């Protein structure tokens, strides 16, 4: 690879301080450090260093997202053909329909997000941080299928500037960047973000009379939200969707052949990502395990209460619908916005899972409780850490008193 390095070295002077292209130094620097880990050597302290860096860490998270991305792409096509009653569409056709939707989403997200990152890195005179590589992959995966691209662009810009850069960039943000983008859409465009957006072109299919009879295109959470405030007996037809061979049977929810945000539907694909994150130690198993426990616990509590049809849903079924699993594996575990102490991670995760299910059931206006719960816990994380640290401090002071 010497020749490649020679080429890079030969154009480098143009980008340095006195060069003609010095304003593009950030772009050059990020490309250079992307292709070659710089030959920096240790100056002091430990003379040898680990090979792990933020690039590798972030890349592994992207790898963990690939199963959900691929499944989500296929599922867009699958749901589309199902909605118009085509039963003989092949794999390629489904993937094509999905790719036409997903690729522009990814391009817009990375384009807007990295563009802003480059500007801020240039202004601050440091290299590009790798944080957005993951955010930029997460954002498309938590979008409804039919979201307009300009809305995504606005949401990404808001999330990167207000959610991250005003706090100082990667490592300094308080709330998860991808969820900030999702929350922005949810609150800024509530009308467009609800209803018929979960299946490709469902609105035009309906207008054109192509839609299969009785197909509403609503998600599992949408159906369940409609049961709140109704008598359990009246809601039997809705709950039937979640049984045996219904549309949202446990089997379908785990495989993921249901409508929903692009990457969130398949528990199986997300689990593959979780295995990679836990095996490499990049994602915190403490948070994932306690988040799951929190969700199951709340589901069980609701079962005991049983005040409406939503509450009677099996806890296992509760955690496999909506964005619970995706949020648990990819959002709650964001190391910057989660608690940083190991003890704190158990508390943070448990409360996150607990609140996800609680918000979802108690407030049908916010069907996606996971987003709210994680954003809320992001804000609470420093407080949890504070009390964990305080316990440590008290231990030390008690030791002092004992002598």
């Amino acid at each position, binding site marked *: *690879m010497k020749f*490649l*390095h020679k080429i890079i070295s030969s154009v480098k002077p143009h980008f340095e301080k006195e060069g003609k292209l010095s304003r593009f130094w950030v772009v050059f620097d990020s490309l250079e*450090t*992307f*292709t*070659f*880990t*710089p*030959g*920096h*050597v*240790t100056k*002091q*302290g*430990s*003379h*040898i*260093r*680990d*090979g*792990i*860096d*933020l*690039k*590798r*860490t972030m*890349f*592994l998270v992207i790898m963990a997202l690939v199963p959900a991305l691929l499944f989500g792409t296929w599922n867009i096509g699958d749901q589309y053909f199902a909605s118009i009653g085509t039963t003989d569409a092949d794999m390629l056709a489904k993937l094509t329909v999905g790719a036409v939707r997903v690729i522009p989403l990814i391009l817009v997200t990375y384009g807007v997000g990295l563009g802003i990152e480059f500007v801020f890195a240039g202004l601050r005179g440091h*290299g590009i*941080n*790798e*944080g957005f590589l993951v955010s930029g992959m997460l954002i498309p995966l938590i979008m409804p299928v039919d979201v307009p691209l300009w809305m995504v662009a606005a949401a990404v810009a808001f999330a990167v500037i207000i959610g991250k850069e005003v706090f*100082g*960039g*990667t*490592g*300094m943000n308080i709330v998860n960047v991808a969820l900030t983008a999702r929350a922005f859409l949810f609150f800024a465009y509530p009308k467009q973000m609800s209803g018929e957006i979960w299946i490709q072109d469902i609105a035009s299919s309906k207008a054109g009379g192509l839609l299969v009879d009785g197909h509403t295109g609503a998600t599992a959470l949408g159906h369940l939200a409609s049961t709140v405030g109704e008598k359990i007996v009246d809601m039997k037809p809705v709950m039937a969707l979640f049984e045996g061979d219904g549309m949202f049977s446990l089997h379908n929810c785990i495989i993921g052949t249901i409508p929903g945000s692009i990457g969130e539907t398949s528990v199986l694909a997300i689990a593959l990502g979780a295995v990679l994150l836990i*095996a*490499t*130690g*990049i994602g*915190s198993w403490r948070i994932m395990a306690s988040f799951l426990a929190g969700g199951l616990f709340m589901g069980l509590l609701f079962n005991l209460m049983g005040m409406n049809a939503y509450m009677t849903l099996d806890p296992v079924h509760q955690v496999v619908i909506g964005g619970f699993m995706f949020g648990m594996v990819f959002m709650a575990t964001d*190391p*910057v916005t*989660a*608690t*940083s*102490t*190991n003890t704190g*991670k158990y508390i943070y995760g448990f409360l996150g899972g607990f609140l996800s299910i609680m918000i979802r059931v108690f407030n049908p206006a916010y069907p996606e409780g996971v987003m709210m719960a994680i954003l809320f816990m992001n804000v609470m994380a420093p407080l949890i*850490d504070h009390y964990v*640290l305080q316990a*440590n*401090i008290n231990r*030390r*002071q008690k*030791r*002092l008193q004992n*002598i």
Partner: protein
Amino acid sequence: MSLKKTIRKGVNIRLAGIPAETVTDAPKASCYSVQPPDFNGLTPKMIVREGDSVEAGSSLFYDKNQPTVHYSSPISGTVSAIVRGAKRRILSVEITPTGTESYKDFSVSDLKTIEKETLLATILEVGLFPLFRQRPYDVVANPSDSPRSIHISGFDSSPLAATTSVALEGRMKDFQNGIDALSILSGSGGVHVGTESGDVTFADVKGCTITEFKGPHPAGNVGVQIHHTEPVNKGEVVWTIGYQDVANLGAFLSTGKYIPTRVVACGGSECAQPAHVRTLAGASIKSIVNVPSTASNGDSVRIISGSVLTGDRVADNGFLGAYHTAVALLAEGTDPKFLLTSGWLGLGLSRFSLSKAFPTWLMPKSKTWDLDTNMGGEERAFVVSGEYEKVFPFDIYPVHLLKAILVNDIDSMEKLGIYEVAPEDFALCEYGCTSKIEAQKIIREGLDSLRVELS
């Protein structure tokens, strides 16, 4: 029957070029040096001038802030140079040995009858006192303090370190003598020796509390041992001293001659014959080890005085650091690494990593690693959490302590336990840091600023 403790957090980095358990005498060096920057907290005031002749044990300079603490020449000869750096800071006092050795004569009384004050005065005069360091602050001890206890780590668990049984071979009588002297100096807490589980070198040592430590590096760090036996509280002072220096102290107290012997472990991937070498403190690197002109990877060779995790980078005309018992030769890593082959996206079969994102954890524990000095990435803000805790065997939150230091929050530093730590305790955190944060430097700055603030 000794106490036993198990340290679970930490890791042993097995670098290539582990020193063989043999010891040879190094030839007499052409130059020796006492380097004031080696001693934290010291402001030197010179006693000698260039051209003066000195004996082994003659004072070269003393500490301006603690004038009784003298620093002396390891050998007889002429003061050939006083090297100064920026702002005329004294960097090195070099002594060229001449003719036959002569030792400054000290009268030492019998340890059984000696008074504490007399003993301390003798140790100060001969220049052995700077070998005592204290917690808190990890600086040269203050002779007017009365330490709660004195702690000695009986082994070095860092990579390429000297082996205790080799370093103390034939010196156990001196070591016992040294322990006897320390128990006179120590307060009610007595003298503590931390030994490596399975090591019998200290089996017959009397007059101290022996605690056996089992576990990976940093189990051999004296700070870890103190934390797991009797942690340092605010307001307490604990002294520490190296096990070889205990033997040197004991030898001095029986002969009256100052001979600062050092058994140095020479190792590392670029060291042709990794083994132990017996020399004197401050000897030139050239007299200790042969440094090849180029490393096996074609790069230059990094000479490290001390441990590869905490030591100092020295030039090939440099000297062994005051507290150091190891010299390592590693290859520099100034070659950029292409992403797919050896860079961030490569398999990384040759990189020893604390992270499971590299296949290190799948490989046999006995494998030795040939690491260079490349940073392995660029510096970033703290992003990943929980990685320091895996190699930091203290009941302290390392990242929060570092952040308190970065914002110079004295109150939080105290509360979070800064009194118990030294930079060396953060060496493994620094090694494994994803964001390449200079943790040891930050801790050193925190300790210094706290010391200024509270003095």
